[in-house]
């Protein structure tokens, strides 16, 4: 188990390899379809949001607002990442992202961007909404809530020991590709 604290350095990220189990602590920002589309089209991050040496988390959390206006996260599992494949590489490059958290893996363009710019893809456990919500210690802020709606907004979360697995590293390796190839070969034998 490798402990990772934000912000990251390129060196620390490049030291990771496919199959490493990690636990992330620090401030992360969520972003899914609407955010990726907005950034891809040249949109600017609002003041207070910086992805540089940080994480973008593919997640549409379930949030409850207390009477005093503060938020509590009641479910926070990863959502399917491949939908962001068209824009992810550019966002990694332009905003200096060091890690993407999601589920289901990503494609060749993201793989190439990870290699070129020193970024990794961290796979969360899909469906583990309650365990992952417990890792969210504090909801610090929310941006674009009105524009994009709650699941699509940028949520600034303080997480502690958030578990994930490196499935795309910064050296051009993809666990998804490896396992697909191995299982396909195995199936050819068994069929």
């Amino acid at each position, binding site marked *: 188990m490798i402990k990772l604290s934000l912000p990251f350095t390129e060196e620390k990220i490049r030291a990771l390899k496919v199959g490493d189990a990690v636990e992330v602590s620090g401030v992360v920002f969520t972003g899914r379809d609407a955010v990726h589309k907005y950034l891809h089209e040249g949109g600017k991050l609002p003041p207070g949001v910086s992805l540089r040496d940080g994480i973008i988390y593919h997640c549409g959390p379930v949030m409850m607002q207390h009477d005093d206006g503060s938020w509590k996260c009641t479910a926070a599992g990863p959502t399917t990442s491949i939908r962001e494949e068209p824009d992810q590489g550019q966002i990694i490059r332009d905003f200096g992202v060091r890690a993407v958290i999601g*589920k289901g893996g990503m494609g060749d363009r993201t793989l190439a961007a990870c290699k070129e710019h020193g970024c990794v893809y961290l796979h969360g*456990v899909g*469906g583990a909404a*309650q365990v992952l919500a417990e890792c969210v210690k504090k909801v610090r802020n929310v941006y674009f809530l009105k524009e994009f709606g709650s699941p699509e907004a940028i949520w600034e979360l303080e997480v502690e020991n958030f578990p994930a697995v490196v499935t795309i590293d910064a050296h051009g390796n993809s666990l998804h590709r490896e396992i697909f190839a191995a299982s396909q070969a195995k199936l050819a034998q068994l069929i």
Partner: protein
Amino acid sequence: MTMLHDSLVELIRRTSAEIPDDVLQSILAALEAEKKGTIAEAAMKIIEKNIELAKRKSQPICQDTGSVIFYVDCPVGFDQITFHETAREAVKDATKKGFLRQNSVDSLTGKNDGTNLGPGAPTVHFHQHRTEDVQVRLMLKGGGCENVGAQYSLPIEKLHANRDLDGCRKVILDAVLQAQGKGCGPGVLGVCIGGDRATGYEFSKQQLLRLIPDRNPVPELDKLEQDIFKTANELGIGPMGFGGKTTLLGVKICAANRVPASFFVSVSYMCWAFRRQGVSLSPAGKIEKWLY
């Protein structure tokens, strides 16, 4: 509010927050089987902990609370209209209470009015029987795993799949291969061989109402189920597609007649967050027994 309404809200709550015992047992067995210290084992541990937490906090196991699908077995003369209306109210109230996420989107406008109600939402299937009891089963079918469902029209040259049981085996295993990493495995397959496109998918989903450890009474299908289960778990895909021993928790297959011109194999995939429950109701709508 009627007793039926309250019973249905409780059915929804329990389905969303508590995994049925047969699924839990198979998940625990899968956790046991994974090699210690692997990422597959770590993923299964998180899954186990998540199941425990959701039950304790009475909150959704997974944030995608899925398509809401009721299966109702009822006596002749049962008032289906009232049941359907009550089910809609129950879904709306269960959403307000947070047992269901605001999860239903108008396909034309993209709007989500937050009620979980609309055309086909929830879906209710009625089936009459000659006994007096009413049984209501509920499935919450997540989107990620629904997306990896597949329908094959045999023959398929690329997969060397002909119109026979061996061809069925090949396409079902192809579905497992293609689903890897995407549908939050380990999962359970419901399969229908035959039927038209609509009934094929419908029957494949209904197979997921069977208990995981049960055995198929049709010898050919039983053999195929065991074979797919064993073969799929030799592929090394593992939980979340991280690699590992457990790719599937179960396989359930049925057959339906087809027309000579068609040969469909329909595969529904259910993620580890397998949410289904059921109740027997008294004539007044009170829960008398839990079915899973």
